[in-house]
């Protein structure tokens, strides 16, 4: 079965510091897409960043960047200059053809 694993149920970071959330996945496909979604407390889930597997260059969106290691099937999210508003559940996901899979999530706490 194709799966997504987020090995850190909870993470904590000091405001203005950098934190990295881990994600690994298991697939035999070579063409797929990877996503990080953010779900703030009691608020809507929103897309943070996405990456095409055929692109070697890591995606970046302002303070959010990924470290995509295709051979290792790893897709970690780095948040730089963490802000209080970054506190949320973060879900890693991949899409292969019509199949979308999510990890169990990592709860990020940001300390002032």
């Amino acid at each position, binding site marked *: 079965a194709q799966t997504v694993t987020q090995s850190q149920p909870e993470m904590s970071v000091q405001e203005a510091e950098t934190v990295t959330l881990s994600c690994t996945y298991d697939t035999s496909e070579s063409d797929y897409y990877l996503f990080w979604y953010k779900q703030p407390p009691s608020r809507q889930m929103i897309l943070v960043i*996405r990456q*095409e597997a055929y692109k070697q260059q890591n995606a970046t969106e302002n303070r959010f960047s990924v470290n995509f290691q295709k051979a290792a099937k790893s897709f970690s999210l780095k948040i730089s200059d963490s802000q209080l508003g970054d506190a949320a559940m973060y*879900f890693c996901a991949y899409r292969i053809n*019509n199949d*979308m899979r999510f990890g169990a999530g990592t709860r990020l706490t940001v300390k002032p």
Partner: protein
Amino acid sequence: DVKVTQSSRYLVKRTGEKVFLECVQDMDHENMFWYRQDPGLGLRLIYFSYDVKMKEKGDIPEGYSVSREKKERFSLILESASTNQTSMYLCASSLRQGGIETQYFGPGTRLLVL
């Protein structure tokens, strides 16, 4: 901006009741999805639809059905609610841009079955 709305944020129902969860998107997306979200399990796909009147089972369809009579609306139906269906239900619709199909989520419906 894409807008995906769900009819209720919170819902309390009794065991055996028939429950309807409604989802509407306003961006003419072809694809719509229903997930349930449980702690430690992430999101699990219940059903999805790639066109009007079309539906496909996801990973956990048992105890659920869906209806898509109009493109913008995708309904999830619990025929006879049970306590193990207490969960957060998320609807999503998707758009393909630049070769990537990205899902946009509604605010969720937290369902409690007593």
